[in-house]
């Protein structure tokens, strides 16, 4: 499969790492050299057929991509639309994240760095990082908020089995944003030997671009699969947005296809109006966090506000700068989905298709459920909606089991003392 050409659309980020007014590199001076080194390594790798072949080979033979595009018949009937699921949940390690970590771990090797560090929320990126580190013989340290180590204990165990060191982060809100702070602090001190394997399309330039490009195969594959299966492009593409890597990964190839509507669904938590949410674009404002100017959740003084979501992977008070730009330009629409709506969609997919999605991905599906009637009215027919099923739900059985109250008290999923 070859990449579609992207005619007539500005190549972003610009040379200074900005997407319009967003992006950039708001980092300590000590990190500038490392970002320059990473940028140079990436530019040269991009032009190097040997790198592309090695990356492509790992994606194909190890990660199991291209992932399937599955036409979900029962779900489609239920919703009155044709639903195409991009099955990133079937990738090795269970999510789209493996694409990014394989690319970055290869880059780390190319730069001669023997140690990688990563932050993780749901644990998917941590597991993927630990996996790539094991495969490519790199030392791996994963920073994870203490709250997340509790709600995602299975992934903590997986990372440790793979040989990674998991460091629970106990300061701040003890979630993803604090794990990111701690990883950045590690990197400032270890930058000469260590690559920061950033897990989402956020952070300082060139990370948003590198991550987008490494996960961009999602959209490239889905676009070609959709054309071959349906003879046309989809009417809409739906993805969940926390930091936004799976979303930018599926959106990017469709950005020039202006007839294809792009929908990003943010974690609405208890509802944006309650203040307990993680919807940085819908419920936030422009600011600077973790190295980039982007939409963030902040108070009137500019202090970051804690985010809330049932989904650890979306529980982050910022978003990748390219999403902020897509929002400002109107090319993509961003709306919130509440915990309840996401869990309804979670159950719907389990029962209609026999697929247990990650709670993150359930947000994308819940969003699709909401937009289908609107699209049907607009188009005067059943819409074709491509949903990025970015990850599988094995890691969420504890949370979902508790949410639905489907276990007796003595039917423990994870022994609490092992958390």
């Amino acid at each position: 499969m070859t990449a579609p050409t992207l005619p007539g659309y500005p190549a972003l980020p610009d040379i200074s790492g900005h997407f319009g007014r967003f992006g950039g590199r708001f980092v300590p001076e000590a990190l500038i050299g490392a970002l320059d080194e990473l940028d140079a390594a990436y530019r040269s790798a991009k032009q190097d057929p040997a790198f592309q072949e090695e990356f492509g080979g790992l994606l194909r033979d190890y990660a199991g991509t291209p992932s399937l595009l599955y036409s979900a018949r029962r779900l489609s009937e239920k919703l009155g639309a044709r639903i195409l699921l991009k099955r990133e949940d079937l990738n090795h390690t269970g999510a789209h994240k493996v694409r990014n970590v394989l690319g970055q771990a290869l880059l780390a090797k190319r730069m001669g760095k023997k140690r990688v560090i990563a932050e993780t929320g749901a644990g998917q990126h941590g597991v993927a990082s630990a996996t790539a580190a094991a495969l490519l013989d790199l030392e791996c340290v994963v920073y994870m908020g203490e709250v997340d180590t509790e709600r995602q204990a299975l992934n903590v165990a997986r990372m440790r089995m793979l040989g990674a060191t998991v460091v629970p982060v106990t300061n701040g809100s003890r979630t993803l944003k604090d794990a990111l702070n701690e990883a950045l602090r590690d990197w400032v001190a270890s930058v000469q030997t260590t690559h920061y394997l950033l897990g989402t399309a956020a952070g300082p330039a060139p990370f948003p671009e590198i991550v987008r490009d490494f996960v961009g195969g999602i959209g490239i594959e889905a676009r070609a699969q959709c054309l071959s299966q349906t003879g046309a492009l989809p009417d809409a593409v739906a993805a969940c947005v926390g930091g936004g890597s799976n979303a930018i990964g599926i959106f990017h190839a469709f950005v020039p296809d202006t007839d294809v509507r792009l929908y990003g669904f943010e974690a609405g938590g208890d509802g944006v109006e309650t203040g307990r949410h993680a919807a940085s674009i819908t419920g936030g404002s422009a600011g600077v966090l973790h190295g980039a100017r982007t939409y963030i959740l902040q108070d009137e003084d500019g202090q970051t506000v804690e985010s809330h979501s049932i989904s650890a992977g979306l529980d982050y008070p910022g978003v990748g700068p390219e999403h902020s730009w897509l929002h400002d330009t109107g090319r993509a629409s961003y709306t919130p989905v509440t915990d309840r709506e996401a869990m309804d969609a979670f159950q719907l997919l389990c029962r209609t298709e026999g697929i247990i999605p990650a709670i993150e991905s359930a947000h994308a599906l819940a969003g699709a459920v909401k937009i289908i009637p609107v699209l049907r009215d607009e188009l005067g027919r059943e819409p074709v909606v491509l949903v990025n099923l970015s990850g599988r739900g094995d890691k969420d059985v504890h949370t979902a089991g508790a949410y639905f109250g489907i276990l007796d008290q003595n039917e423990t999923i994870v022994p609490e003392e092992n958390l």
Partner: protein
Amino acid sequence: MIFTDKSTKKLVPYVTGGIVDGWADYVCAFADNGADAIEIGLPFSDPMLDGPTIQEASDRALANGTTLDGILRDLSKISVEVPLIVMTYANLAVRAGFCDRLAEAGIRGLIVPDAPLDEVGPIRDAANAAGLDLIPLAAPSTTADRRREITASAQGFVYAVTVLGTTGERDALDPAANALASSLRALTDLPVLLGFGVSTPEHAAAAVRDADGVVVASALMRRLMDGAGPDALGAVVGNIRKAI
């Protein structure tokens, strides 16, 4: 200008604004014990360049309900002769009117550790329009080209970071620190001050063999959070003063 000459060694102690009620008394004590300027940290929720001590100080200050307004109000009640400099992160510094509010409160300089040369332009413009010096940081990893650019656009003084790492006390001063200070001094007439991990009078004395002064933060804040009052902390500052 914060500093107009290099004839004497400069001492810039730090305090986190709002860390305790009456925190401004520490500012007075520092001034009374030989500080040449005083750095006031405006706490930020995500201080990515700070080690455990300043993180803890920031968290405590924010938990106390500290705001920019409150800090500036506290400062308006004291009178010190030496320049006051604010250190804070970019998300606070990029907000509209931020530099004007600092200037109105008598602040003379601004340090934004996560706004490097590439991004600092709009912040520097706002600072200068308000009459504030924008003090840049340089690190041991900063290339020769960037050292030239940083010193050329520097105002007030140049803040040379002793180590690749976060703020915090250290057992010894990295030898790279003095080399960095020497290289920067050759590029500018402004004073070059070393900071990050300058923890003892001995460190300070070693630093000023090549630098024009030191910034001392974590060593003071740890003592403050352990209960040291303004007099005790002023004495610590006085001892460093004597050593340089």
